[in-house]
């Protein structure tokens, strides 16, 4: 998950320097880091080669396992994409709340971030699905998406906050001095510029969320991991099932990381 480190304000009064360090960065190779770049290729093509090798030379049970998984991959993507969309919306509001001058809104947003970041995602999932069922019955898929979105929304909020604060104060002053309202200034001037800072860490959150989505398998959501478990408990081929699951996750994650790495390079080049 992303860790945001906002360095102190530049004493010259210039723009605040913000660096967003990402804990999962090791999975995202850049061309300068030759060692890691090679490692990415070895891991990615190695994983694909392994899957192909197993499917061709040991079709029983590997082909059967592979046939079992596409439904799960679909569900994993569905949970991930829905969660990220909601997390982005929550993150935007949280980020805006965290920089709000209104003490109540600011306090509420900060409290949300602190509370959510302090509770493990697995516990949040259990809480929404099992604990809250005492009052309301939330369907599996909805619980999964709510828990993931609420959890990641807190992290996204910090990314949005850092991105917005990375834009020099003079930009907002220029917008306001032209008669724009705070909202107009935010949406026409500040946010469009902050997107450049915000996009790369959001991409990393996307990958992290995809991996964490495996946690929803503890609910009755048939994601990739749960499909593997279902197969394994029927066939007792635990080793084979989990090997394939790990390889499939690896391929998807490395592929997405690569995409994000390319996107990041493009943004930097602009």
């Amino acid at each position, binding site marked *: 998950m992303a860790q945001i480190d906002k360095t102190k304000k530049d004493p010259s009064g210039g723009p605040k320097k913000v660096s967003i360090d990402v804990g999962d960065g090791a999975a995202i190779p850049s061309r300068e880091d030759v060692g890691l770049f090679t490692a990415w290729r070895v891991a990615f093509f190695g994983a694909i080669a392994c899957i192909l090798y197993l499917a061709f030379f040991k079709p029983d049970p590997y082909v059967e396992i592979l046939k079992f998984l596409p439904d799960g991959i679909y569900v994993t993507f569905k949970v991930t994409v829905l969660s990220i969309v909601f997390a982005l919306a929550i993150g935007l509001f949280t980020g805006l709340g965290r920089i709000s001058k209104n003490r109540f809104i600011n306090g509420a947003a900060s409290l949300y971030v602190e509370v959510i970041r302090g509770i493990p995602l697995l516990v949040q999932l259990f809480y929404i699905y099992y604990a809250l069922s005492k009052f309301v019955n939330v369907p599996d898929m909805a619980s999964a998406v709510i828990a993931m979105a609420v959890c990641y929304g807190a992290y996204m909020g910090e990314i949005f906050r850092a991105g917005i604060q990375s834009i020099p104060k*003079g930009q907002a002053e*220029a917008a306001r*001095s032209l*008669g*724009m309202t705070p909202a*107009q200034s935010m949406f026409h*001037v500040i946010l469009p510029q902050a997107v450049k800072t915000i996009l790369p860490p959001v991409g990393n959150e996307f990958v992290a969320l995809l991996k964490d989505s495996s946690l929803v398998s503890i609910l009755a959501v048939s994601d990739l991991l749960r499909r593997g478990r279902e197969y394994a408990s029927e066939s007792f081929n635990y080793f084979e099932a989990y090997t394939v699951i790990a390889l499939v996750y690896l391929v998807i994650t490395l592929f997405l990381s690569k995409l994000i790495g390319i996107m990041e390079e493009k943004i930097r080049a602009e």
Partner: protein
Amino acid sequence: MQNDTRRKMVEMTGVTKFFGTLRALDDVSLDVYDGEKVVIIGPSGSGKSTLLRSVNKLEEINAGSIVVDGYQINDPKVNINKVREEVGMVFQQFNVFPHKTVLENLTLAQVVVRKRSKKEAEQIAMDLLAKVGITEKANVYPTKLSGGQQQRVAIARALAMQPKLMLFDEPTSALDPEMIGEVLEVMVKLAKEGMTMIVVTHEMGFAREVADRVIFMDYGKILEEGSPEHFFTSPTHERTQQFMRQIL
């Protein structure tokens, strides 16, 4: 449009502003009349920028009153955005919008704030770009422009709102020397057209050419005011004499 009634564009009375315990503005009173050009000079930290920024409420004052274009801007009930529509501001650091083209820099607030059609806004924008002499850069992003060009875009952007009053906060201080002239030229042109202007600057040549009144500030107070000639020939206050010696 005649000034015989001498309508007050800005009326500041007893304005006081603290930054923490620092008294940035200390009981300052200043009136600026319609069509008048006032140049504010003074050493850094004297409060001149703070004074200028309080006119469009970029700085909130702690005591006193400021009336701009008939609006008491310290009154929380007054919609400050309405007042700011009529008050253009030019910053030392230009603050052009880097994600918008030059043309979009000029049309954004016209469309969003003044609710003009895109076509009308572009027409006004192109006329202003011609006026500041950068028509050919209309579709370029401002980061590709020199500092002088960026500042001219910033001036045109403020003018696109057709303000009644223009505030300039050290508009040439961040510029390379060879670019100062092109910006001052635009400002002189604007002054000659009758725009009401308050300018914080060290460019005494500019002050001499256009200022109706020069104001010298130090320690958050107005120490002396008078015609540019007065400041060149016979400044009375000791601090003013010292300052004039340093900058001339």
